[in-house]
């Protein structure tokens, strides 16, 4: 049984311009100890998906089964045990730490709220985790603004891990950091995973980060998963034209032509295109794509995609 299993999850927001379908029928699983990468353009709903899984945003419909229990419909008061086991690391290391609290109070409060240990025990745990993420004990008495971005992200990681979670959702945890610092933080996340036997749902728009990090990759477009496969398989044989475009968009000095593989902008999630959501931008779209919405189908073992022309590189001749 997977640790997390999400089935047909929808998160819609009412807006004056119509319903915004941020997450629109997503199913995914995360096994114990697995790192699942979730990749997609900004605005495709990947952050909302992460927050919905943690019940930080209310789901419209669907199941979120964590360790055998559907938490999608639990009342907010009953979520506390789940909060202890599923945590989040945020993108913005400046906004995610309360500027008015010391690092010690930021790290002690979760233990206090969940009634873990007495004062001395909590102090011991906080000291252990701060050293484990690579910061000196003297950091505890200081405020978030006294640290650099990378150091703050270490504090964010310490806060996410202090309750001893099983699942950690990393929402673009390195995209706000310098490249050299990114590497340190990614290394730290890998070490933490080994040490605490964590499962990650790793959200990023950066394919190279996902490639380094994820055992399995989900590609998201406009609220849907359009392709899912193991890392190696997906990189070698992308089936969906969107995945292929994303991979080609990685700058590669050995390639002469660096033309943008995708024209146009992501459509508005308030006004979704008919048929396949990707067809207005798709290089191989045909008439059927504007008519029928493709379902996620298995094309090879462990490799699924939602495309009528999966694997084709060029537009088939019109029948």
């Amino acid at each position, binding site marked *: 049984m997977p640790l997390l299993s999400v089935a047909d999850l929808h998160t819609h927001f009412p807006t004056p311009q119509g319903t915004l379908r941020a997450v629109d029928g997503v199913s995914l699983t995360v096994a114990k100890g697995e790192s699942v990468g979730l990749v997609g353009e900004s605005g495709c709903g990947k952050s909302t998906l992460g927050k919905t899984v943690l019940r930080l945003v209310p789901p419209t419909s669907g199941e979120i089964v964590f360790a055998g229990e559907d938490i999608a419909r639990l009342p907010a008061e009953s979520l506390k045990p789940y909060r202890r086991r599923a945590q989040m690391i*945020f993108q913005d290391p400046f906004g995610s730490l*309360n500027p008015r609290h010391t690092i010690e109070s930021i790290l002690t409060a*979760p233990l206090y709220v969940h009634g873990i240990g007495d004062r001395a025990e909590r102090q011991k745990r906080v000291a252990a985790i701060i050293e484990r993420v*690579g910061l000196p004990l003297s950091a505890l008495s200081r405020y978030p603004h*006294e640290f650099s971005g*990378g*150091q703050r992200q270490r504090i964010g990681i310490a806060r996410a891990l202090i309750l001893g979670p099983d699942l950690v959702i990393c929402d673009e945890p390195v995209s706000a950091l310098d490249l050299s610092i990114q*590497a340190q933080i990614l290394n730290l996340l890998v070490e933490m995973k080994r040490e605490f036997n964590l499962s990650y749902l790793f959200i990023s728009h950066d394919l190279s980060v996902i490639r380094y990090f994820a055992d399995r990759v989900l590609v998201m477009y406009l609220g849907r998963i359009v392709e899912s496969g193991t890392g190696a398989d997906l990189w070698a044989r992308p089936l969906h034209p969107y995945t292929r475009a994303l991979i080609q968009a990685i700058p590669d000095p050995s390639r002469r032509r660096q033309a943008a593989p995708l024209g146009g902008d992501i459509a508005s999630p308030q006004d979704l295109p008919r048929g396949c959501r990707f067809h207005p931008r798709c290089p191989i779209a045909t008439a059927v794509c504007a008519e029928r919405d493709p379902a996620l189908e298995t094309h090879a073992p462990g490799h699924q995609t939602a495309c009528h022309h999966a694997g084709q590189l060029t537009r088939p001749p019109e029948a």
Partner: protein
Amino acid sequence: MAIVELAPEAPVVAPAVGTWRALRAFLRNPAAVIATLFLLLVTLIAIAAPLIYPEDPLSMVARPFLWPGQNPKFPLGSDSLGRDVAAGLVWGARISLVIGIAAMALGVTIGIVVGATAGYFGGRIDDALVRLIEIFQTTPSFLMLVVLVAIAEPRVESITVAIALVTWPTIARLVRAEFRSLREKDFVTAARGLGYGHARIIFIEILPNALPPIIVTSSVIVASAILMESALSFMGLGDPNRISWGSMIGAGREMLRTAWYLTLIPGIAIVLTVLALNLIGDALNDALNPRLSAER
């Protein structure tokens, strides 16, 4: 991507912690320092009133209409009933400050609770509370104050409560706006994700971040509460058993042409105190919101 172990980041040189930086900025403002010293002096005089003038300031102790300087025993003269103006001024400071600070404290407390609830929870709770705030804000506040005091007995306590009841909507609106923007911050999302309760998120996570504008507004509210109390007393709606600056002006009003010092002296006291509080408010605003004031 090649992952290599790099030297740890150089520690960032920490800018001074917020509170200390704000305090230094405040102390660099000469007007604010003078205003603070003046207010401290008024406070000291108010506290020491029973020591300076042990006698009831409402008792007749001198010949009526002594001008200031006429009799060294009564440096600021006496009024139409022979009451010592200096004693009235000193005891009046007590009433002004007590009512000003107590009304502010009560008004700010109500305002924070209502504004935080509305801003944090949003939705229907917000709609209902915003209506309530609007009802209070669209009623002419001084009229409401007069009615409230007229219904209750004019005593220090009832006047304080009445002033608090007309001032809390200002704070509530401000707190609501702060909470609406702060609740979207990642650290609040993180707090929810960690399973913190609403009370903890409101008072421990969000409120400390909303305090600077509340502190600034509070100093101005003390000033306006002092003005409201003076206006009430001037109209004879103050506590008849306590002397206040407003009631001194009210009593001196009829002798304005012959004994103008009776209105001028308490008038100056009100102006200086209110001015000092407003200057402190401005300086706090500059000190606590450096970016905002630079843009002004």
